[in-house]
């Protein structure tokens, strides 16, 4: 069975209501929907974050996201999966990333959704620059993200 897989990289915001509508439309064979929303936190490692600049590598980003979606679809029985990742200027509480998966079975939906966000965090070429009271700084990659990504390489 082929899954409906979609990835978008965009500066515009997205609408969760619309996303759930699209995910559930003509999808009554799926009983389980798992979604992940990542938003800009106002505190990161103790510093007050007022805004974020998200850069990416156009072309490679989309290729990686589509490869990850295909891998998720090969590993788990999912009917649909969609990733939206924003780039450009974002402020505290803005949405950054959306990963939504549907499946006939909840365990597959949970695993695929968590795999996608964990793999995206270490493989999709996005970079965050924070602006706060302390000025600007490019974020360092987190060891915990690398560790999470490795858990899926079994």
């Amino acid at each position, binding site marked *: 069975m082929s899954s409906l897989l979609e990835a978008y990289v965009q500066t515009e915001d997205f609408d969760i209501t619309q996303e759930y509508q699209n995910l559930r439309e003509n999808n009554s064979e799926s009983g389980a929907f798992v979604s992940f929303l990542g938003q800009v936190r106002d505190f990161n490692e103790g510093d007050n974050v007022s805004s974020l600049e998200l850069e990416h590598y156009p072309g490679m980003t989309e290729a990686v996201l589509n490869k990850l979606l295909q891998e998720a679809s090969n590993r788990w029985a999912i009917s649909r999966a969609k990733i939206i990742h924003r780039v450009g200027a974002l402020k505290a509480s803005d949405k950054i990333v959306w990963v939504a998966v549907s499946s006939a079975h909840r365990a597959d939906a949970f695993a695929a959704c968590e795999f996608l966000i964990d793999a995206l965090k270490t493989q999709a070429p996005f970079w965050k*620059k924070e602006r706060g009271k302390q000025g600007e700084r490019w974020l360092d*990659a987190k060891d915990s993200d690398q560790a999470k990504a490795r858990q899926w390489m079994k």
Partner: protein
Amino acid sequence: MITLLYFARYREALGLDSEQFSITCPCSVQDVIEQLKQRGEPWLSILADSKLMLAVNQTIATPDQALTDGDELAFFPPITGG
């Protein structure tokens, strides 16, 4: 001729996001790195960064990868998206 791309803190440090670069085949990513190092700072520091990541034609690569005319070679720091 290949295309070099620089992202994030490297792009800012170099004040450059891309350039065309002449290569003489056969040639590896490591050969390009050696030539770029001869430009001095800030290239030296960036290319010596233990966290430097490489992609050839939009796929993660290692320094031993061979390059051919028309390739796209990107340098970037570890990923921090999501």
